[in-house]
């Protein structure tokens, strides 16, 4: 009896431990292999239920738009409740992975185009939306075809593009005039020449803030597209076949090095993107490579001084002479939303996304937060500014989107590029070092995906 009493606490402890440990199966096995619900995705006759949605648009500038659309949908459909959760850009990457691993994905979730989206597709977590948003469907025809294609995998559509984003080199017209740069540089060599003139005139030719690595990667995205033939690029960006042996990759790094040496500074790794941008806005720098979704900060409405707001224009990063790749490609991609393949409310989720991307809400996106919508005809003179409309026209002329290098490739390759290019900026790595690192990362990625 005495023995039993003494061991009682241990028995209780053991039981608690057993319950706790029993809660854990092999990682990620819960629901593994489950397939998409075979329910129809066409709009439900009776709209009711609760939709869960997670976005990465917690920024106070952007969050109200998504809250407003959700509220408007709830008002139009009183039996529907939308639980909208918005987190920041970086925390979203953590949160969505935790939700995926714990099989608690919301009905609708944000995704970048490229390998980030493909991870959900490969894991069976993204609903096949081809039947409702394929290029030949009624809804699909309302989108720019390039935007739809960015979320296409093996000929199937898995995402609803929500915005259009492309990378441009904005320039200060006053600085160009003062430095004697006549006309917009049409080749990379012209751009480097213009940088020399701007430097002589006392300007920082290009403002770059690369504290977190991604701004330089956007240059590499464009330069890779210019220097490597599209078929080779597609093969290498696929983790199952990537090798990165084409000489164009080394050329691209060399060209980036030229840009740093003649147009920017080896100190750029110590400057944040925002601090770099401030140098352009306050007129110290003559050019700045930024996304079209950032254009608004260069306008008077966005807080830029009149001296810049009235005197800026933009161009694509010029292609090098004799480039072997696609000189019509444009760095950028739409962001989008995916629907959880296991969602019981998939049809309702699709209906809400149709509402979010109708003509009225697409125009509201441009008017409220200055983003271009992938919905055709949504940007007009009344809801946007001239540069934004010009960007939309230019995007439509692009032969294809060169999707961000850090999201289109496997994470191993992306990291090799990130750390390698930082080394190029501070002068500690050569182009050969970078590409060797990338090749090793590609070999590792190939092994990972089998």
């Amino acid at each position: 009896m005495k023995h039993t009493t003494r061991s009682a606490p241990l028995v209780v402890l053991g039981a608690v431990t057993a319950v706790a440990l029993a809660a854990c199966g092999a990682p990620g096995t819960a629901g593994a292999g489950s397939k998409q619900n075979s329910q129809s995705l066409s709009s439900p006759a009776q709209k009711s239920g609760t939709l869960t949605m997670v976005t990465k648009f917690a920024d106070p500038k952007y969050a109200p738009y998504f809250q407003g659309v959700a509220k408007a949908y709830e008002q139009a459909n009183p039996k529907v409740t939308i639980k909208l959760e918005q987190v920041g850009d970086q925390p979203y990457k953590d949160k969505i992975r935790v939700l995926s691993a714990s099989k608690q994905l919301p009905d609708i979730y944000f995704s970048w185009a490229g390998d980030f989206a493909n991870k959900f597709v490969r894991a069976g977590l993204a609903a096949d939306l081809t039947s409702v948003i394929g290029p030949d469907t009624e809804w699909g025809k309302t989108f720019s075809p390039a935007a739809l294609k960015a979320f296409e995998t093996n000929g199937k559509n898995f995402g609803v593009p929500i915005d259009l984003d492309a990378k441009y080199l904005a320039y200060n017209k006053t600085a160009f005039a003062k430095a004697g740069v006549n006309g917009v540089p049409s080749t990379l060599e012209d751009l480097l020449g213009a940088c020399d003139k701007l430097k002589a005139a006392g300007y920082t030719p290009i403002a770059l803030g690369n504290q977190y690595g991604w701004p330089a990667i956007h240059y590499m995205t464009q330069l890779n597209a210019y220097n490597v033939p599209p078929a080779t690029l597609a093969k290498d960006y696929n983790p199952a076949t990537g090798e990165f042996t084409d000489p164009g990759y080394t050329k691209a790094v060399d060209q980036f090095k030229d840009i740093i040496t003649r147009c920017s500074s080896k100190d750029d790794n110590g400057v944040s993107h925002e601090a770099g941008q401030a140098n352009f806005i306050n007129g110290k720098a003559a050019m700045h490579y930024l996304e079209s979704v950032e254009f608004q900060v260069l306008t008077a409405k966005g807080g830029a001084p009149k001296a810049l707001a009235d005197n800026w224009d933009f161009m694509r990063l010029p292609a090098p002479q004799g480039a072997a790749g696609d000189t019509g490609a444009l760095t950028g991609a739409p962001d989008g939303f995916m629907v959880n393949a296991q969602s019981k409310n998939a049809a309702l989720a699709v209906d809400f996304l149709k509402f979010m991307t109708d003509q009225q809400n697409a125009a509201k996106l441009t008017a409220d937060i200055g983003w271009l919508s992938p919905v055709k005809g949504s940007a007009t003179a009344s809801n946007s500014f001239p540069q934004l409309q010009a960007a939309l026209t230019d995007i439509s002329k692009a032969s294809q989107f060169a999707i961000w290098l850090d999201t289109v490739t496997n994470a191993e390759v992306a990291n090799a590029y990130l750390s390698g290019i930082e080394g190029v900026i501070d002068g500690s790595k050569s182009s050969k070092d970078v590409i060797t690192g990338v090749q090793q990362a590609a070999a590792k990625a190939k092994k990972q995906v089998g």
Partner: protein
Amino acid sequence: MNTTSMRWRSLAWVLPAMVLLLVFVYYPIVENLRLSLFSWNAFSVRPTFVGLDNYRTAFGDPIFWRALRNNTVFAIVSLICQVGFALVLAAVLEEFVHQRLRGILRTIYFIPAVISITVAGILFSFLYNPQIGLVNRLLGAVGLESWQHSWLGEPGTAMGSIIAMSQWQSIGYTAILFVVAIQRIPSEMHEAAKVDGAGAVRRFFAVTVPMVREMTTLITILTISGAFLVFNEVMVMTAGGPSNSSQVLGTWLYRNAFLNDDMGYASAIATVIFVITLAVGALQIVVSRRRRIEW
């Protein structure tokens, strides 16, 4: 009340804490150990058992070793500043500074400790800015242009700059802890030493240092553990860059888990951090068992 009833009653009191500890401390530790034996990520359909492969990867990974070295340097510098300098600072405050001024100085030294790490990180990013930062401007003003750097942007200076910021933030906090310990020393001891002709420096080494030994041990343990768990400072200021030069174990773990989608490897790194901090904790137990000075 019989013994059995007493035992059950005492168990009822400690059970909630036990359950919380099991669920939120011990279960995650065991689970992390188990997960480190798999190759898996958040999107894995079928995790693969790989035995000790993740640990082999870690030991062959140069960035893992660089991160460990950075943590070790962080710990050594923190020991010198947050234990050594902080104790001297506390002794000087108590010995030489007038009582009114003492309060003001204590507050000044303590203020950085109450500033959010994110705010402090952003503040120092501005100070270290190569173009407009105060550090480079000051160096330029005194003719030391050759010492100017892109402090957070060069592999050779990034980690040191982060460590410096961390010392600025923490030294006041540990100094205040030492002040409290020094104030508990009976004044008779210092007076007796004075009568024996001991000067301020002699009294510091012969009276103050031995009498604050328990606090020194505690702060040493906290400082070393903190140095191996450091994460926020690095994430805010460099995110481990440039070229992974400022990676620490915490940020390398995070990068592998949430950006490289290699949760198994991240779990192995977490186990290494656990082993190191556990060893430091065990050391604390051994040291604290030594004979205490009592009065």
